[in-house]
């Protein structure tokens, strides 16, 4: 417990330092770029809870993100709620969908879950495209307030919220790694049949992982309408979310929390630079090639190459 608090304190300190540094630059562009990078830190860590620890691939990252985003849109049509509440609501909806998808497919082999998540993205996109209430295929505008007390600009406020979420996800990831839950996850990843045979409640643990992972993705998605200010289905369900969220943990390394964080920071910042200086297509090509290169040649990711795969400590 002491260890947990110390870690949490360190992460909060790091987050505060980061926010102060971004504040000190005094240019809104830093916030816009920083938001995207932080969003990917959250998505990569969330993906890794299921993909890295348990070994089940979720290709539907965009679906969970969009669920959060459209939950926010639907709620704002009914009542103007503060953004943190929308994030919670997005998390609940996406978590429930994660639970449902998991419940339908996780009793089968892992590949079926992966295909089902791909399917989920298309089904949800079709539903949203046909749902006029949230804008349908034409899209929807999200007007963000001009001024927020304390933070000044709205984008700084959104960065603050995303940073908070990132702190939570990282802390939860670390807590999973050092707990019995993490041991169960690893047992499933290494040999599910053996785990089941030795009394690990595999289905239950897998459902916990899909729900958590989906919920965090949904929470990350809720502020998205206010970030892009104009949200339409094909951008909310963009495949590049899935590619990035899979590539980042696999490039960073999937066995420990700092793998996805490292991957997201490196790849996220590099992409901000490449998108501005070259083009966004080339940027996606590079991500795809890195993904293939790393899974083929460096299965342990960067943290494996750097010898950081970390012995597990018990908390």
């Amino acid at each position, binding site marked *: 417990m002491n260890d947990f608090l110390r870690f949490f304190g360190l992460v909060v300190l790091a987050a505060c330092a980061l926010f102060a540094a971004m504040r000190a630059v005094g240019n809104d562009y830093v916030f816009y770029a920083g938001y995207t990078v932080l969003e990917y830190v959250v998505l990569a860590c969330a993906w890794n809870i299921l*993909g890295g620890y348990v070994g089940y691939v979720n290709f539907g990252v965009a679906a969970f993100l969009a669920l959060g985003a459209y939950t926010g849109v639907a709620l704002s049509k009914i009542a103007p709620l503060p953004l943190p509440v929308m994030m919670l609501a997005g998390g609940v909806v996406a978590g429930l969908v994660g639970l449902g998808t998991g419940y339908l497919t996780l009793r089968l082999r*892992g590949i079926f879950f992966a295909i*089902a998540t791909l*399917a989920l993205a*298309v089904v949800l996109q*079709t539903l949203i*495209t*046909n749902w006029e209430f949230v804008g349908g295929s034409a899209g929807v505008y999200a007007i963000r307030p001009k001024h927020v007390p304390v933070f000044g600009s709205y984008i700084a406020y959104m960065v603050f919220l995303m940073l908070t979420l990132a702190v939570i996800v990282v802390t939860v990831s670390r807590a999973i790694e050092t707990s019995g839950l993490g041991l169960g996850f690893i047992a499933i990843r290494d040999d599910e049949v053996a785990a089941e045979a030795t009394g690990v409640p595999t289905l239950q643990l897998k459902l916990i992982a899909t729900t958590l992972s989906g919920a965090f993705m949904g929470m990350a998605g809720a502020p998205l309408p206010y970030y892009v200010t104009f949200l339409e289905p094909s951008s909310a369900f963009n*495949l590049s979310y899935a*590619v990035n969220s899979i590539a980042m943990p696999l490039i960073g390394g999937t066995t420990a929390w700092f793998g996805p964080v490292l991957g997201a920071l490196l790849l996220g910042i590099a992409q901000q630079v490449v998108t501005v200086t070259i083009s966004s297509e080339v940027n996606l090509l590079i991500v795809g090639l890195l993904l293939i290169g790393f899974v083929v040649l460096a299965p342990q990711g960067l943290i494996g190459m750097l010898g950081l795969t970390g012995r597990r400590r018990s908390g």
Partner: protein
Amino acid sequence: MVSLDLLANAIVSGVLLGGFYAGVAAGATISFGLLDVANIAHPAFVVFGAYGAFLLSERFGLDPLVAALFVVPVFYVAGAAVYQVYHWAFERRGDDSMRGLAFFFGLMFVGEVVLILMFGVDYRYTSAAYASTTLKLGSIAFPLRELIPFLGSLAILAAAQLFLNRTFIGRAILGVAQDATALRLMGADPVRLKRIAFGISIALAGAAGALLLVLEPVEPSIGREFIGRVFAIAVLGGMGSLPGTWIAAVMLGVIENLTSIFAGASWAPAVAFGFLLLTLAVRPSGLFGR
């Protein structure tokens, strides 16, 4: 009131469409059903095949169906190479689930981006004359752009079925699907057989791609629509049975077509995936599974 003519036309067109889906899914039935290699990039290879046929018809004025003859051997070699990498990096280490999937996902994505960089996001189509001809039988229309992919896919399935059941290598591949270890004990090389089979599955994807170009204009990300269809068909068809694949595909084609006519085309993409989710939830062993 729905007219009988409209219904009959919708069903016929659905059968033709479904027959083509069977051609697209045939390769996946071999790789996923028989070899246990979950190649989610399979539909992407179909789109590559379509662009290959497009390039050949653009540069050398070849008919897409003739172009298929050139696409197939190239795709066989590419498929064999992809399998070799897959085997070396994942299967050999027994680490084929998570990273293997990510590998194919990466291939799909990179291929799509390369196509966008080369051809842009515009729709590409064939200028072959028959693509706009329609045969009529009474009040029922048989557009050649649907009939030719239907017949071509039937040929693909028949050829694959004959190969697997009648030739020595084909039967050996079926043997690998049943028990690779037993095959190795009998002195055969399962990796070589799987390489051949995977090469064939990609070659079939290339041929289906040429048919896709006849059926409809293509753009780089069109393959995504087929992921759901291909896997819904492969699972529903009973994993590894080509006749089962054909029946499942025709069913899906008819349901999809009826949906897009009676509920609107924007709902059609969800049909295949809904079908798939339902199959996985209710009957994962497929319609004809044990």
